[in-house]
């Protein structure tokens, strides 16, 4: 029953999307508004239809309907209820359905909020959004159907007797409940983590969110309305997509840190990189769109960036879901690879063709020219160059080099994490310097002397900061320089906020807290942006500390023995074996962490034995200063071996991420205007 309901709802959503495309395009051709309204209603129908389909799958997961082969694949009778729910995105088929649901929610939001203001763009905007949705619905219905069920073909030979099919095959019977429960495979243990509960939805929201600016940009190109209207309509949607993508990346890093057991959070894995690429283009767009709004410049460039962001999302989706790329993050090899590649190519080519058509017509000419190298717009362009250079370098290392070498040399050539770091470190240094300089430059241009004057105090404070770090024991020149560059960007951001607060206090007589709150309320974008910058600088400090100064050692300890690592001491206290309620066997070591002779924590690193594989769960004592992170390698009550990491400042990566999200939320929050 649930399978039939899900299938019917999915089919209805696809029909609604296809009808919306046809009706809106007809309206664009004839100008008949009722067809546009009809198309809009059909587009809005996709959301409840997909809620119904997803709801049916969730109910099937929660009520253990193992005849559905997806439920059979991702859960078993021992799976706890929370993970039964998150199993919705635990494998390809469920996550594709969930992806479509999120996309339809975004689309309905965009139609609902922009229907009045951007009606002229809707005859093209709705078909583009619906085409993207229809593509993913087709994947769900025809290739990766989450409502397929196991059937036994009575007349077939034994080895072909069991099939998975969405429709009931002739002369087929369902397997017995006992067989289904006994054979259910259960969730991949790597996914049983809190980070995995929220990391994929956030990443999907970020990915699908970029469909909205792309659709509005293409609608502007198709309709010929190339004023700033499409930018106004989509600016906030871009920020929302960027916010979720940032959150998804941060949570993914946290999951890797907690679950993959190597003491790191970013490994330059191709799938990680594929998710990072749209973030880079999106960041470039968020900056350059300001130049179009304020100066009427970079119209062509902004269009290119929106197209590139969507294209990067589609490519990243292909990289993750096709299974052609070797990564711990990728899905299993799937038939969706070729259709996704074809869809990515088709949408990108369509967008570029439309762009070339309008560009030749002269509709994307800038209203002004760059007047000075030392203007805010020039520095923003430089910022864009850096983000695009990062994009090119990471794309080249992850995909470009392996693919071209395979094509032209017949052998695949790859690069490792060290080479990625070689590419990106100078670019990130340049990014942090620009993050400090650009906010101080004026629109239109300013003299070098004036800019130098404005930079004097931040540079002085940075020098003092670096001196303090050096005296405090940061003896590595590279680290001191790295901290210096990041500190400079942070100081400029803080100075700008303090200047704003001081101005309000001076002119309005407000107290500092009120002035601070009002400052963010009155100019959300600007000060939200500064907060994002501060978040990025905090992340930068965390990355430098945890990368350059990480300590990694391995020790085998007898029970009661203590080992000293820097100013910590670790005492092996006990070892127990226990069985969890979901059936896994746990090997748990108890350790006491001492610092300067005082007990600071008791940690319990463990190994969980799942039927599929063992999972090492780290025990950690976390402070803002560092993480004392311990993995149990093997052991018994008498002796055990531990891998011990001291990761300085690593928690700043997560706290900086939080600041970044908060700043983006402030910048994206709708402004309340009083009548």
């Amino acid at each position, binding site marked *: 029953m649930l399978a039939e309901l899900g299938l019917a709802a999915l089919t209805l959503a696809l029909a609604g999307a296809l009808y919306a495309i046809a009706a809106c395009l007809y309206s664009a051709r004839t100008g008949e508004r009722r067809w546009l309204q009809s198309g809009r209603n059909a587009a809005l129908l996709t959301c409840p239809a997909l809620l119904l389909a997803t709801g049916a799958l969730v109910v099937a997961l929660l009520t253990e309907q193992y005849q559905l082969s997806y439920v059979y694949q991702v859960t078993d009778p021992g799976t706890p209820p929370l993970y039964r729910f998150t199993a919705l995105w635990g494998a390809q088929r469920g996550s594709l359905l969930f992806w479509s649901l999120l996309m339809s929610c975004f689309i309905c939001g965009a139609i609902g909020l922009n229907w009045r203001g951007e009606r002229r763009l809707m005859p093209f905007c709705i078909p583009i959004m619906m085409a993207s949705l229809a593509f993913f619905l087709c994947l769900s219905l025809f290739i990766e159907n989450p409502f397929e069920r196991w059937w036994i073909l009575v007349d077939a030979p034994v080895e072909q007797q069991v099939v998975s099919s969405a429709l009931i095959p002739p002369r087929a019977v369902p397997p017995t409940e006992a067989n289904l429960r*006994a054979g259910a495979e259960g969730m991949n243990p790597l996914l049983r983590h809190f980070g995995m509960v929220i990391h994929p939805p956030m990443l999907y929201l970020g990915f699908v969110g970029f469909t909205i600016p792309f659709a509005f940009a293409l609608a502007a190109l198709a309709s010929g309305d190339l004023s700033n209207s499409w930018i106004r309509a989509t600016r906030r949607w871009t920020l929302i997509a960027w916010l979720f993508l940032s959150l998804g990346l941060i949570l993914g890093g946290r999951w890797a840190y907690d679950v993959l*057991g190597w003491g790191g959070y970013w490994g330059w894995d191709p799938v990680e990189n594929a998710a990072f690429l749209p973030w880079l283009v999106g960041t470039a767009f968020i900056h350059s769109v300001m130049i179009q709004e304020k100066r009427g410049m970079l119209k062509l460039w902004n269009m290119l960036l929106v197209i590139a962001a969507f294209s990067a999302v589609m490519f990243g989706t292909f990289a993750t879901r096709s299974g052609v790329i*070797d990564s711990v993050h990728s899905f299993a090899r799937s038939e969706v690879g070729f259709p996704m590649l074809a869809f990515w190519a088709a949408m990108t080519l369509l967008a570029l063709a439309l762009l070339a058509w309008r560009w030749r017509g002269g509709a994307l000419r800038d209203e002004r020219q*760059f007047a000075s190298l030392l203007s805010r717009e020039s520095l923003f362009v430089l910022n864009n160059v850096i983000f695009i250079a990062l994009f090119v370098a990471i794309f080249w290392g992850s995909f470009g080099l392996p693919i071209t070498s395979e094509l032209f040399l017949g052998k695949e050539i790859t690069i*490792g994490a060290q*080479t990625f770091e070689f590419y990106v470190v100078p670019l990130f240094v340049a990014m942090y310097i620009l993050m400090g300089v650009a906010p101080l430059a004026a629109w239109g241009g300013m003299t070098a002397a004036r800019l130098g004057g404005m930079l004097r105090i931040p540079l002085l404070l940075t020098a003092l900061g670096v001196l303090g770090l050096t005296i405090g024991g940061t003896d590595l020149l590279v680290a001191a320089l790295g901290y210096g560059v990041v500190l400079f960007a942070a100081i400029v951001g803080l100075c700008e906020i303090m200047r704003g607060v001081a101005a309000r206090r001076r002119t309005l007589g407000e107290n500092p807290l009120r002035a601070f709150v009002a400052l963010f309320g009155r100019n959300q974008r600007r000060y939200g942006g500064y907060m994002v910058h501060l978040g990025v600088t905090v992340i930068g400090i965390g990355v430098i500390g945890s990368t350059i100064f990480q300590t990694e050692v391995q020790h085998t300890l007898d029970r009661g023995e203590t080992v000293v690592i820097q100013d910590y001491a670790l005492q092996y206290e006990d070892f127990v074996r226990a069985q969890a309620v979901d059936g896994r066997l746990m090997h748990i070591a108890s350790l006491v962490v001492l610092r300067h002779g005082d007990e600071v924590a008791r940690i319990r690193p463990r190994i969980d034995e799942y039927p599929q594989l063992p999972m090492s769960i780290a025990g950690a004592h976390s402070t803002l200063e560092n993480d004392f992170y311990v993995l149990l*390698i093997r052991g018994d009550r008498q002796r055990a071996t531990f891998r011990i990491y001291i990761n300085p400042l690593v928690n700043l990566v997560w706290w900086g991420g939080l600041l970044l999200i908060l700043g983006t939320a402030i910048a994206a929050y709708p402004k309340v205007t009083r009548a």
Partner: protein
Amino acid sequence: MSQVGWEKPKHPLKRKRSQRVQFITAGVVILVSLLYLLVSGTLQGARYFITVAEVLDDPAHRGRTLRVSGAVDGESIDYDSENAIIRFEIVHIPSQYDDLAQALHDALGDANAPRMKIIVEDAAIPDLLQHEAQAILTGALERDGLFHATELLLKCPSRFEESSPPEALGQIPEHN
């Protein structure tokens, strides 16, 4: 009475031209720097991604940093936890295959398939290092006949691939 003045800029064309030169120079410098970064990084860090058979057959590969993929033989896995050294063997799998799980299974079932001994020093034993996992290793085949790996990536496709129809379900219920 206020005076209205209009000052003609000095040599406006010259100024515009010099600004254009500035922009072009800055652009060229940036582009050349980026190209240098990409090319020099690639030349330093590039390594071939080849099969076990290719590594063993071609002496030119000895001592060079390579990326190799193979099937892990579970019985050969040995972990020296005192010294944090992992030793295991990988078996040749072809560079092209339709079904990775099947390719890994077939490779380990072939007694004549080329095998290579791996050593990974100063490493925790990864959870995914198991029989029939795909190991993707970066390192070099040294004179001692061991492949000294500095990076180890593992995939266990047989455990997480879309489930093929389980034959155990095929016991037809009696009531039908």
